[in-house]
C-alpha cells in the first residue's frame, strides 16, 4: 500500500548516513584481515603472511587464561546490571521529585563525574579506601580491623563495579529521563483519577513506559560483555589483585603485544566484537520469538 515515492524518500534519507558509515566504518574493515595474518608494516595488509587462526589460538593459550576470561565477564556483567539498576531507580526517583529546579540541578550534577578521568577518580578512591582512610576510620568505630581494600581479591571487583557506577550512572539516567517525558501526562492523570496511589502509578504507568528503553540499553550493552573497562582497571589494580582484577585488555596491554603484534591485537578485538554481536543477535531473536517483541 506504500507509494513508491515514500520508499524513495526513505532511501534518500538513509543515503548520507549510510555513506558515512560505509566510508569510515566499512572501508577500514579491510584491516580485519590482520587478525589472520602475521602483519609486517613494511609489507602491508595485503602482502603479509597468512597464518589463519594462529593469533586467536595464542589468546587461548595464555597462562591463567581461564581466570582472566572469568574476571572479564564477571566484572563486565556486574557493571552492566548495576549501572542499569542504579540509573533506573535514580531516574524514577528523580521523576517523583516535585521541585523542578532542584530536579534539574541534580540531573546535571550526577552527570559530572563522567567528565573526570580515571586517574583523578582513582586518587580520590584510594584516599577514601586506604589503610587509614575514611572508610577504615569509620569501621574502626565499630571495632573492625582496617581492611586493605585495594589488596583484597574479595573487595577489588566490587570497588571496580561501584566506582564505575559512580562515574557513569548519570549517563543512563539522562536516557531514562528522556524516555519518561515520552509517557503522556494523560496516562498519569487517568491513573490518578482511578485512585491509583504512587506505587501503583509506578507499577502500571512509569515502569511499563520505560521497559522498551531498558531492554534496548540492556541489549546494546551486551556488546560490551568482554569490555570490562581497561582505563579504569589499569589505574586501579596492582599485582596483589591480579587474581581478581586482571582482564583480557590489561593482560594484553602488559604483554606489549598490542604494540608489536598487530595481528594478535586485531584478533582480540575481533573476538570481542563477535561475541558481543552474537549475544545481541541471540537476545533479539529470543525476544521476537518468545515475547513477540522487536528490540530494534
Amino acid at each position, binding site marked *: 500500500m506504500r507509494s513508491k515515492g515514500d520508499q524513495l524518500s526513505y532511501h534518500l534519507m538513509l543515503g548520507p548516513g549510510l555513506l558515512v558509515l560505509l566510508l569510515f566504518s566499512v572501508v577500514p574493515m579491510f584491516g580485519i584481515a590482520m587478525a589472520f595474518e602475521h602483519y*609486517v*608494516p*613494511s*609489507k*602491508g595488509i595485503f602482502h603479509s603472511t597468512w597464518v589463519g587462526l594462529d593469533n586467536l589460538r595464542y589468546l587461548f593459550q*595464555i*597462562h*591463567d587464561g581461564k581466570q582472566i576470561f572469568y574476571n572479564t565477564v564477571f566484572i563486565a556483567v556486574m557493571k552492566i546490571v548495576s549501572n542499569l539498576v542504579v540509573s533506573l531507580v535514580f531516574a524514577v526517583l528523580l521523576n517523583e521529585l516535585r521541585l523542578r529546579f532542584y530536579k534539574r540541578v541534580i540531573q546535571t550534577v550526577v552527570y559530572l563525574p563522567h567528565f573526570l578521568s580515571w586517574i583523578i577518580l*582513582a*586518587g580520590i578512591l*584510594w584516599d577514601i579506601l*586506604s*589503610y*587509614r582512610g575514611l572508610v577504615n576510620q569509620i569501621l574502626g568505630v565499630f571495632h573492625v580491623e582496617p581492611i*586493605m581494600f*585495594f*589488596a583484597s581479591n574479595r573487595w577489588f571487583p566490587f570497588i571496580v563495579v561501584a566506582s564505575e557506577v559512580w562515574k557513569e550512572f548519570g549517563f543512563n539516567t539522562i536516557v531514562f529521563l528522556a524516555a519518561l517525558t515520552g509517557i503522556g501526562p494523560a496516562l498519569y492523570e487517568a491513573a490518578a483519577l482511578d485512585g491509583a496511589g504512587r506505587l501503583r502509578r509506578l507499577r502500571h504507568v512509569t515502569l511499563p513506559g520505560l521497559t522498551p528503553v531498558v531492554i534496548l540499553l540492556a541489549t546494546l550493552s551486551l556488546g560490551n560483555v568482554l569490555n570490562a573497562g581497561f582505563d579504569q582497571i589499569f*589505574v586501579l589494580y*596492582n*599485582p*596483589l589483585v*591480579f*587474581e581478581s582484577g*586482571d582482564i583480557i585488555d590489561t*593482560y*594484553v596491554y*602488559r*604483554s*606489549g*603485544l598490542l*604494540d*608489536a603484534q*598487530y595481528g594478535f591485537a586485531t584478533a582480540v578485538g575481533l573476538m570481542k566484537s563477535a561475541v558481543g554481536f552474537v549475544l545481541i543477535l541471540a537476545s533479539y531473536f529470543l525476544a521476537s520469538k518468545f515475547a513477540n517483541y522487536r528490540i530494534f
Partner: protein
Amino acid sequence: MAGLVACSNGGKGAEPSAGSIASAGASGTAAAEAHDPFGKYEQPLEVSVGKFLNLTDKTLPAGDTPTNNQFTRYLEDKLNVKIKAAWQAGGDAYSQKVSVAIASGDLPDAMVVYSYSDLRKLVEANLLQDMTDTINDYASPLIKDIYTAGNDAALKAATFNGRVMAIPASQGLADSMYMMWIRQDWLDQLGLQPPRTVDELENVIGQFIKTNPDKAQNPIGLPAGNLYGMTNSFPTLNPLFAVYHSYPNNWVRDSEGKAASGLIQPETKEALGKMREMYAAGLIDKEFALRKDPFEPIINGSTGVFFGPWWMGFTPLNEAMNKNPQAKWKAYLLPLDKDGQFNTHVQSPANMFYVVRKGIEHPEAIMKMVNVQTQNELGLDPDAHMDLKVDWVNEPLRAPIAYPDSIEKDSEKVHEALDGKLPVDKLTSVQKRVYDNYLKTKDNPTADIGGWSEAFSYVEGAGQLLRSFNKVPSLYYGETETMTTKGATLGKLQQETINKIIMGAAPLDSFDQFVKDWKRLGGDQITAEVNEAIK
C-alpha cells in the same frame, strides 16, 4: 664551503682554543665531498622530522616556534638543511604518533624513539635505513669519542645482525644509581648516625616512625613505588637488594659462568627474606604496592628516608622543601654490604635512538645534524652563538649524546669551583649556572626553589657519585623475542609472587617454586636467547 659558513654566520671567526673538532670541520673545506661530518650541501636539502614538543616550555623568544628557532636556523646556515615537521606532538601524543608511524609504515625522514622496544619494532618492520657506514663515515670525532668512552655500548644497543640500524643517543649512567636520601635534621634531633648497615637502617626507621618528628598524620616506613627500578623509577628498594648482591634487573653470571637473570638468584631470596621481616615490623610502607602517588609521603613528612637517584632535588624534594623549608635532606651511598661496600646496578647508556627512514637519499644529513647539535650542546662550537636559555627540546631532533659520566663530571667541576680549586671562568655554561644557583640558594632554598632543585641535585646528589663504590653493569640490556611474547606471563608471576612474599601473604619458600615456574614458563628460553646474544 664550511669556511664560508663560519664567516657568514658569526663573522668573528673561530677562536683557536675552540677545540680541534670544530677546526676539523673547517679544514674539511679542501676535501669537500670526502665525508665531511659538517659539510654543507650545495642545494637546500629538506628533511622531514617527527617533532617532539614540550608544551610547557616557555623559553622560546617571541616569534620563534618549535620548528623555526635558533637551532633550525643554525642548521640551515651551517648545513643548508631545511627542517619540515611531518607532525608535532608532546607527551603521550608523541608516543602515539610513533606507534602509528611504525604500524602504518608511514615514517618521516627522521625521528627520535624513546625506547629500545620501539627501535626493535622498527627494525623488525624493516622500515629503517642501515646506518653502519653513515656513522663510520660521518659521525664527528666528538661523537665517536663519546661512543668509545662508553665501550661502544650505545652502538651495540643499536646493532641488529651486525648492522647499526640507528644513531644511538648516549646518556649519563648516573640516573640508574640509587642512593639513600634521609632527613639529616631528624637524625641529629634523635642523636643518630646515618645507618651504615641494614640493622642500623631498621633502627633508624623505627625511631623515625616512633618519634614522628614532623607530626605527620600517618608516619610510614620505606616507600617503594617500584621494588627494583632500572632507571629513574623511584622510590625503590634497589640498594636493599644490592646489600645482598641481588640485582633483579640485571643479567648476571651464574655459578657455571653463564648469563642468568638476577631476579631468580638465591641472593634475591635472601633480600626478600629481610624485606619480609621489615614489612612485618612496619619498616616498609604497609601500602607500598597500592599507593597511587608514592611521592606524597615524602613531601608531607610521613617518611624521612627513601631510595632514589641523584636528581631528587628536581622532584619530589623541591616540593618537600616548599612544604617544610626547615627540612635538611642528605644523600648517602648507604647501606653497605657485609664487606663494607656500596653496590649498585648501572643502566645501558643508550635508551633513545635517532632513526632514519629506509631509502632516504641523504642518510648522512641526519648524522650531520646530530654532529652539529652535539657540538653545540657540549659548548664546543664557537660559531653557534646560541642563547643558552632556550631549551634544547626545541632542536628539531632531540636526544642527548653525552659522556657516560657527564653528570659526575659536571658535579666534580662545580665542587672544585666551590672549593676554590678551579677558576669559575673555566666552568661550562651549565656548570656555571649550577655554581651560581648553589651560592644563591644554599642558605635559603625556598627563595628560588627552581635554582635550588638544580644546585642541590648536582652538588648533594651527584656529589655522592664522586666517591668510589661498586657499579655492576648487566650482561645484556636488550630485549629478546621470548621476552616480548612471554613478558606478560612472567611479569605477572613475578610481581604477584614477590609482592606477596614481602607482604607476608605467601611463605618465603614460595620463592623456590616461583623460580621453577619462571624457568618453565619461558624463562629458560629467554636465558638461552640472552646467552646466544652475548656470545
